[in-house]
Structure formats: structure tokens, C-alpha cells
């Protein structure tokens, strides 16, 4: 039995009375879902997800979080249930040490001191940041800073994590780490909404993909269906992962039956085919 966590009803947002950034969006996000939001620059991804924690209020339509209309709620109230990790960690971090940074959120929520400590310790383990406990947030490298940004939200234990481009500007290793963390977050029961440009790894992680173009949602389904739809992909000007490109061709050449999204998937597909041929 799933329950709706975030519901958008005919959500429209217009900046300064002229720029229509999202238009007439209807969307329901269930508890425990792992969702990717993709779309080219300026398609309205950030604007959409900023409505989920009240950073933006709808110009028209409504947004409900846990059944409550966000229109009358303050960001600070919503912060309890919705955690928003900013695209640029520099906008978020200000404390003298990483530890204080992680304590800031739960302290604001009025969590008792010893529980704050416990949460912070757990976060250091979860994000593997123990070495940097007493480091200054601005002294550590940018990818690590991004992890600190995520950890500072993690200690608040929100129901939903919103990650705006957690992998943009990251090296490959950190990107991998980020996606592993996302999966683990989900395994702990959290709902994760991840905005991203690079779909290469996202495709392997998420189960539901929301594709945006020109301030509207043009597709909302599983990644496999999204990537199989060549016209859809072309219309967003986004390039699918190379492994998907390869499997398009292999499918067209009748070398495999189904489209594969990952290296492992393709391996599986090809070996099926191989077995098929051998058994003949």
C-alpha cells in the first residue's frame, strides 16, 4: 500500500509575471519512490522541485506535502519532512567545521542533544567523511563539500531528499559514490528525487523518470521506456548513455532482443542471445 507524499495539482509557476517556468503540472510522488528528473537547461526542473519544500510557491495550482497545502506553510516547517540539497554547496555551508555543519539542521528542528550527536556520527559513517570531522568546510575539495551538503540534510532525517544536480561538476568516482548513497538512502526508506543532466548513471539507479521540456512534463515512466523512445529523446536534445546507444544498434541488428541500460544489463542480454544460438 503506497501513500502519496507530494501531490501537484495544475501547478504553474511564473517568475516576475512573465517567465513561465513550469506549466500546468500534475504529479503524484509516492512514499519510497526513487525518481529522476531530466530535461535540458531551462526546462523548469529546478523550479518544479523548489515547490516541494516551499522555496517557491505556486503562481497557480496547488502543491501538497504529506497532505498539507504548502501555500500557507513556511520553509522552516516543511524542512522537517523535505530536505533540499542545493546545487552549489557553497550556498549552504557556513559553519567553522564539518561537524557543526551537520549539527545545524537537527538543532534547528529541536532534536535533543544526544540524538543530534548520534545522527551526526551516523552521517559521518554513511558518507565516509570521518576524516574531515573537524575540517573547515571550505578547506575540503569541491566533491567532498558536495557530500557534506548532502550529509547536512541527512542529519535532519527528512522523508524526502531533493537533490538538485548532485553529480554536475563531479568526477566520475564521486558521481558513483553519490549514486550509491542515493540507493542506500532509498534502502533506509527515504524518498529520493534527483535532478540531473547526465543520465549515464541515473538510468541505472532510478525506477521512475520524469522528463521535462519547455516547462512541461513530456514523459513520466521507467527509464527503459524513456530511453527506448528515440523520438522523445531527440526532442529533449539529451543524449542517452552510450551503452544505451550501443544497445539500440544491437537491437536494430537483431543481436539482442531487449534494450539494455547498463553494462551488466547488456552483458545479460548478449549472453541470453548467445545461449539461444548455442542451444539451436
Amino acid at each position, binding site marked *: 500500500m503506497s501513500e502519496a507524499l507530494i501531490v501537484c495539482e495544475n501547478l504553474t509557476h511564473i517568475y516576475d509575471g512573465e517567465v513561465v517556468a513550469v506549466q500546468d503540472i500534475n504529479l503524484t510522488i509516492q512514499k519510497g519512490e526513487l525518481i529522476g528528473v531530466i530535461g535540458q537547461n531551462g526546462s523548469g526542473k529546478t523550479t518544479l522541485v523548489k515547490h516541494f519544500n516551499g522555496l517557491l510557491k505556486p503562481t497557480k495550482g496547488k502543491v501538497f506535502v504529506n497532505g498539507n497545502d504548502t501555500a500557507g506553510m513556511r520553509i*522552516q516547517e516543511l524542512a522537517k519532512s523535505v530536505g533540499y540539497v542545493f546545487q552549489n554547496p557553497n*550556498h549552504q555551508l557556513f559553519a567553522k567545521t564539518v561537524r557543526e555543519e551537520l549539527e545545524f539542521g537537527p538543532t534547528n528542528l529541536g532534536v535533543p542533544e544526544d540524538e543530534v550527536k548520534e545522527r551526526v556520527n551516523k552521517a559521518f559513517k554513511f558518507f565516509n567523511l570521518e576524516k574531515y570531522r573537524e575540517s573547515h568546510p571550505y578547506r575540503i575539495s569541491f566533491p567532498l563539500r558536495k557530500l557534506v551538503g548532502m550529509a547536512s*540534510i541527512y542529519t535532519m532525517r527528512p522523508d524526502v531528499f531533493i537533490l538538485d544536480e548532485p553529480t554536475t561538476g563531479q568526477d566520475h568516482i564521486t558521481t558513483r559514490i553519490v549514486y550509491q548513497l542515493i540507493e542506500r538512502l532509498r534502502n533506509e526508506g527515504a524518498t529520493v528525487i534527483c535532478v540531473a543532466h547526465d543520465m549515464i548513471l541515473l538510468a541505472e539507479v532510478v525506477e521512475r523518470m520524469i522528463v521535462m521540456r519547455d516547462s512541461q512534463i513530456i514523459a513520466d515512466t521507467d527509464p527503459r521506456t524513456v530511453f527506448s523512445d528515440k523520438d522523445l529523446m531527440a526532442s529533449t536534445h539529451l543524449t542517452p548513455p552510450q551503452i544505451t546507444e550501443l544497445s539500440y544498434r544491437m537491437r536494430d541488428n537483431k543481436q539482442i532482443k531487449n534494450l539494455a541500460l547498463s553494462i551488466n544489463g547488456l552483458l545479460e542480454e548478449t549472453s541470453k542471445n548467445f545461449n539461444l544460438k548455442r542451444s539451436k
Partner: protein
Amino acid sequence: MRGAVIPITMVPGDSPLHKIAPLPKLAWSFGVLIIAFMTRNPAILGTIILAGLLLTTIAQIWKPMLRVMIVLFPVFVISIFLQSIAPAFPKPWNPIVGFGPFTIYQEGIYSGITMFGRAFGMTLFAMVTIMTTHPSDLFASLEKIGMPYVLNFILTVTLQLIPILQREFGTVLSAQKSRGMKGTGFGAVLPSMVPVFVGAIERVQQLSISLESRAFGSTGNKTSYRNVVMRPSDYIILVSGLLATFATGYWILVDKSLDWSRSMTFSPTLSISLVVSAGLIFTSFVTIAIFKIIKT
């Protein structure tokens, strides 16, 4: 979500003032600046303010002007408050009324009003100039009259940085709110300053690298993309501005009867209401400003 951005920049339009070349407008603004500092005469300062308001009407820039003045006016007004109890004026001071440790002085009120008049008049002219002139034209003209290129450039960049920092401050503040920051008092706003300043410093560092890689420090004459042409009417306005400044300046130096600091007297009631309303305007402005910054 974004804080109100103060529009200290050009307001597009095609009023007669927009068509005047930058140099004559600069000359008038500087003339007003000089005169305002030469005199404390309320009539002259009042005339300057009236002229400034008239120009604002001609240029059709009332709306942006109001948005700037909403911020600056309370700051000017506070001079009446501060001056009345501690005049920047040669002693002896003549007390008007006193309550407790505070005494309101005749010279204080006079000095406060004139300081207010100076600041208000000067800013009006400066704002009319800025709002009716394309920044590039303004800087190109400044360079023509000998302003060093580097100084010019620093000014331009600084002006550009203000709205960027204002926006950045809004983002940072919303990031803190997303982490449940209790938004009360100055202590809450302070943490947000750290990321804004770090961001500003990083931005400037990057800018300097990118400038150097495009031969910023090279010597020789710089050319400007926009060419400023001075028409005969512009020369007339320029020269008349210079003449008006000299004539008024001369009059102020010669005519000692323009000093009204003793002859212009204020009744206790008027003084108190002036000082109190100045204080009220300022405090309510500060309160509203803090509230606006913190409000979700």
C-alpha cells in the same frame, strides 16, 4: 524569494534627458555636488531638490526613483535626528528644548535640515544622470575626460556585482531556511553572509584570471564599442552647467546674508515633531527591512 533589487542602473526610455550626452549631465551633477557642499542655505538646497524632482518627471523615471528613495530617504532623514542633538556646527549652540540628557539645539535642526537637503538634492541629480544614461556611454565619457581605464573598470564591475550579490544573498538565505533556520534577529542573517562573501571573493578571483587572460593589463589606448557623439545642444547644456555652477558658487561666497543659521528659528513644537518623525521614519524603515529579509 529574490530580495528586492534596488535599480541603480539605466531605465530605458526616450525622454529629452535620455537623449542628452553623458558629459553635460555629469557636469550638472558635479555642479550640484559642489554647490550643495558650498552652502547651507535652505532656499538654494530646496531649489536643487525641486529641480531634481522636475527632472525626474521629465525623464519619466518616478517609479524606479521611488524604489531607490524608499531606501535612501530614511538614511537621509536620520541626519535631522542625529544633528539636532549633536550638531556638526561651530559652538555656541542655542538649546531649544531639553528632555533628560538630550537637548535639541537650534543649530542642530538647521544643520540637520541642510544636511538632509544636500544629500537628497545630490542623489536626485546623480540618480537622474545614472537612470537616463547607458552605463557604457557613461564610462566611455568618463574615460574621455581622463578617468583612468582601470578605475573606470573597477567601477563598472562593482556596479555589476551589486545585483549579483543581492541575488546570491537570497539563495543563501533560502538554503539556510531549508535547513530549518529560525529566522529572527541579525544573528540569523549573519551566517548567510559567510557563503555570500566567500562566493564574492571566488568570483572576483576568477574574474581577474579571465581578465588577465584577455590582455587586461596591456598598455596603450583602449577603444570603446559605443561611440558617444556630442551635439551642439549638448555643448550648450554643458557650458551652461559650468556657468551656473560658477555663478552660484560666486554668489554663495560673496553674499554673507545667505547664512540663515541664526535668523531661521524653530519653535519647540516644530523641533520636537521634526526630530521625532525623523527617528520614527528611520526606525520603522530598519524594522521593515530586517523583517523583509527574514520573512519567508
